[in-house]
């Protein structure tokens, strides 16, 4: 590898390097505990994220490969990275107040967040199964620790332990699948593998097994039914901002890998996973929507709601094509905004102990804090997919892609569960606007939380009123990536 290649590689992985450097500096700073240090490190994290975002934006959409084809900057990678910067920055903003209330304002928290972000970034840029796996593990390990960050809280500890065990189990399955792929094709690089699999027999039992293991591993990460059992417990036990982070950035990264593997590179496997994913998607929407109906803890409810949204996202995968891919990308943007917005509200309502988690704590919010209630209303309506919010267009675009590909039955099932899921979002609205309470919520607004709420609210409304620019971004990214893939295959065919 000559020097220019190394230079290009370093340049292209610049955003990752910035984030990891930032994490290291933050780690050094946090070694010397000082009062008010949390704020400093949070600021540093935001700065690093902004720098990385700037660099990612400059590197752009043009497919450029680095580290000898193990790493790529393309439309998908850049789009998802920008989305993850947004999600992480919002998480940092909502974390400050929460950590202060819980008396754990330690710098390590942000260090772990940055490491998790860098892992997620490597996941979306990796074009080699090993690199992707390293990204997954880097992200997962950081999140394991974050989940158990409230060291004196039993629920938090329990959640962390559960997550470690189940996460390791799923990683094992994933790794097994990856090793079978290596055995079948003799490579771990996706483009070479795509060519090797191009004329493979899809009935080969080993290939079926490998695909299913890969699928199970990935579906576990996104919490699709029947691999969802861990999700509610861990969402409930983890510190609220971490739950927000997992449910958005974690999900975005996992879906990015799914998109890259199943829709972009290894498309020839589609006949193997198609039927299974149809079943999983329908089950996921069903279980997510129905189980959320009976939850009385807002975080558990959001866990099931996030499962249901995952089912909807899988439909985008089934729709296929550029539109299907773009619909998933757009959906994840909207989901990140509205879900983190709602977690900001949960953090605001959190007053130590368990305040802010039973859904009854939302009672009478419209009377005591009309502005906050209005923001929550918009976010909840968006989650329910009611226009004119972003949530509507997110679902709409998936439906467009589905109907376009002729899968009308799936679309009908999807909208029916969507109507079911409206019920539990409405229940919160009902509590806020129609219930009286003797103990109105105590809210201590900080500038950071205010900013987070403003960004998520404006984002949710903008994606609803002017979806064109966001949709176009997703479509351009998806198309650019597909074109690059077809060109690569064509070139390989010529060569």
């Amino acid at each position: 590898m000559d020097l220019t290649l190394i230079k290009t590689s370093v340049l292209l992985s610049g955003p990752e390097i910035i984030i990891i450097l930032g994490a290291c500096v933050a780690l050094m700073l946090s070694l010397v505990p000082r009062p008010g240090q949390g704020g400093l490190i949070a600021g540093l994290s935001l700065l690093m994220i902004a720098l990385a975002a700037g660099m990612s934006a400059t590197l752009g959409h043009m497919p450029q490969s680095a580290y000898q084809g193990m790493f790529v900057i393309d439309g998908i990678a850049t789009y998802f990275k920008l989305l993850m910067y947004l999600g992480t920055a919002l998480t940092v903003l909502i974390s400050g107040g929460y950590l202060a209330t819980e008396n754990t304002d330690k710098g390590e928290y942000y260090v772990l967040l940055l490491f998790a972000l860098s892992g997620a970034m490597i996941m979306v840029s990796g074009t080699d199964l090993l690199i992707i796996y390293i990204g997954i593990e880097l992200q997962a390990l950081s999140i394991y620790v974050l989940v158990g960050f409230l060291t004196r809280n039993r629920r938090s500890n329990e959640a962390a332990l559960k997550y470690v065990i189940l996460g390791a189990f799923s990683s094992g399955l994933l790794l097994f699948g990856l090793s079978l792929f290596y055995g079948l094709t003799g490579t771990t690089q996706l483009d070479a593998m795509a060519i090797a699999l191009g004329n493979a027999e899809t009935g080969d039992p080993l290939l079926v097994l490998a695909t299913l293991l890969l699928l199970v591993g990935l579906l576990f990460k996104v919490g699709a039914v029947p691999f969802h059992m861990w999700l509610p417990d861990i969402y409930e036990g983890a510190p609220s901002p971490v739950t927000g982070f997992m449910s958005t950035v974690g999900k975005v990264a996992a879906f990015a890998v799914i998109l890259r593997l199943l829709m972009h590179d290894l498309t020839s496997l589609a006949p193997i996973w198609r039927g299974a994913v149809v079943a999983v998607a329908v089950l996921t929407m069903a279980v997510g929507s129905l189980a959320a109906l009976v939850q009385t803890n807002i975080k558990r409810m959001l866990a099931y709601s996030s499962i249901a949204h995952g089912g909807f996202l899988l439909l985008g995968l089934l729709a296929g094509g550029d539109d299907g891919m773009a619909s998933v990308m757009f959906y994840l943007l909207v989901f990140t905004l509205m879900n983190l917005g709602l977690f900001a509200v949960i953090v605001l309502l959190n007053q130590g102990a368990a305040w802010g988690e039973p859904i009854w704590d939302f009672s009478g919010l419209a009377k005591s804090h009309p502005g906050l209630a209005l923001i929550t209303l918009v976010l909840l309506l968006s989650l329910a997919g009611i226009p004119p919010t972003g949530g509507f267009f997110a679902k709409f675009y998936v439906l467009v892609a589905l109907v376009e590909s002729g899968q009308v039955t799936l679309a009908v099932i999807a909208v029916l569960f969507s109507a079911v899921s409206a019920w539990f979002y409405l229940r919160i609205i009902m509590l806020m606007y129609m219930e009286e309470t003797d103990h109105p919520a105590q809210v201590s607004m900080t500038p950071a939380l205010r900013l987070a709420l403003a960004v998520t609210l404006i984002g949710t409304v903008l994606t609803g009123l002017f979806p064109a620019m966001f949709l176009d971004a997703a479509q351009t990214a998806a198309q650019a990536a597909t074109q690059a893939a077809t060109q690569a295959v064509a070139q390989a065919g010529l060569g």
Partner: protein
Amino acid sequence: MTGLPVLSLLILLPAVGAVLLPFLRAAQTARWCAFVFLFADFLLAVWALVAFDASSAAMQFGEHYSWVPSLGISYRLGVDGISVWFVLLTTLLGWICVLASWTSITTRVQEFMTCLLAMQSLMVGVFCALDMILFYILWEAMLVPMYLIIGIWGGDNRVYAAFKFFLYTLAGSLLFLIGILLLYFNAGQSFDMLALMDADYPLQLQIWVFLAFLVAFAVKVPMVPLHTWLPDAHVQAPTAGSIILAGVLLKMGAYGFLRFSLPMLPDASHYFAPMMIALSSVAIVYGGLLALVQSDIKKLIAYSSVSHMGFITLGLFTFDAMGLSGAVIQMFNHGITTGALFLCVGLIYQRSHSREITAYGGLIKMVPLFGILFAAFLLASMALPGLNGFIGELLVLAGAFGVSGWAGAAGVLGALIGAAYLLGVYRQMLLGPATVPGGAVLGDLNPRELACALPLLLFVIWFGLYPKPFLTILQPSLDQLMIQLTPSAVSP
């Protein structure tokens, strides 16, 4: 015609009000502010009606901006001879709602008025939209303020009613969305309503889409057996909510049939016409019978709406020039009369806090102004000749007899039952010895209350005696609809 974007202004004016209102401190200012915005909107609608070219069936005051180009969604507005009347009806009821809630809504006034303004903006938008997705978005977004109006300011069982209203309508609308998408991909990826009307679809597709649309519209109308949300919502809603529900929201279901099902899916409409006529006949009789046994006046009017809306769907699916125009006239008139009836019920409920029909008696002696107005609206609802309800019902019946003797008979029976329960209310509440629940002495209507009831009375009498201007504007659009309704030459 000027280049003024009249329809956008009609939509935006209340929206601007809705944004400003939450910042007002005093409740009284909020009331006045809402009133001014909505009244200005009404004047604008009147102006649009005057400027409307009655000789043309084309969409007028058109506006078109691209919105989501990659999916072919645009912001496209326009009104024809049918929708221009519903815009007028919506804006008329809008400011009447504000006046009707002036003293009856005392908690969270700013929020209530904001909901009313938002409702109005969305409702006017629904009648003006010429892009399917724009229509759908406005149609769906309407659920939210209505849900809040019922849920926050409603009666004792308001939360249940609000939930039921929301979920029924939402489930229906979502299937409607799938139907829209099916049409979209079959008509060359366009959401433009006029283009969708011009396209031809295979019968099989039409049937599926018709069914999807049917669920959405039948819930809204509501048609039996999807009507059960209506009595709950009506009884629990505050007066203004009932007026909007009965006056405008129910019309939207019928408007959906008129605007989408009939012109876009003519073959399926013919295919399903017997079923629709049967369902409508059942609704007319069944709704009437249910109304007959109610002791709660609001419930009675709610069930009478089911019956009257049955006339409308019956008229629509006769595919007969008389039946169709009767249905549209009935839509408008039902909005006026039922809105007025709910207004009267609200006025009396506010004085005596009872909705029991039998608790009242001799109101015409005790509160003559109220009594006369109430009597007029009851008689109009009964379709007394000379008042507005008559012509629509007559035309629908004429159309129905042309198609099926049974449907016509059901219509006549429904009209008779209607006379029975409405006259029952009339006799019990207005005549006889004066009794009032609790023995309170009621005050007659004050000028504000008269100001909301008299314009409605004006329409009742005007359309009863001289409906010609209404029909003149309506006719070209109806003729156009009749052409679109011709089955596409029995294409295989």
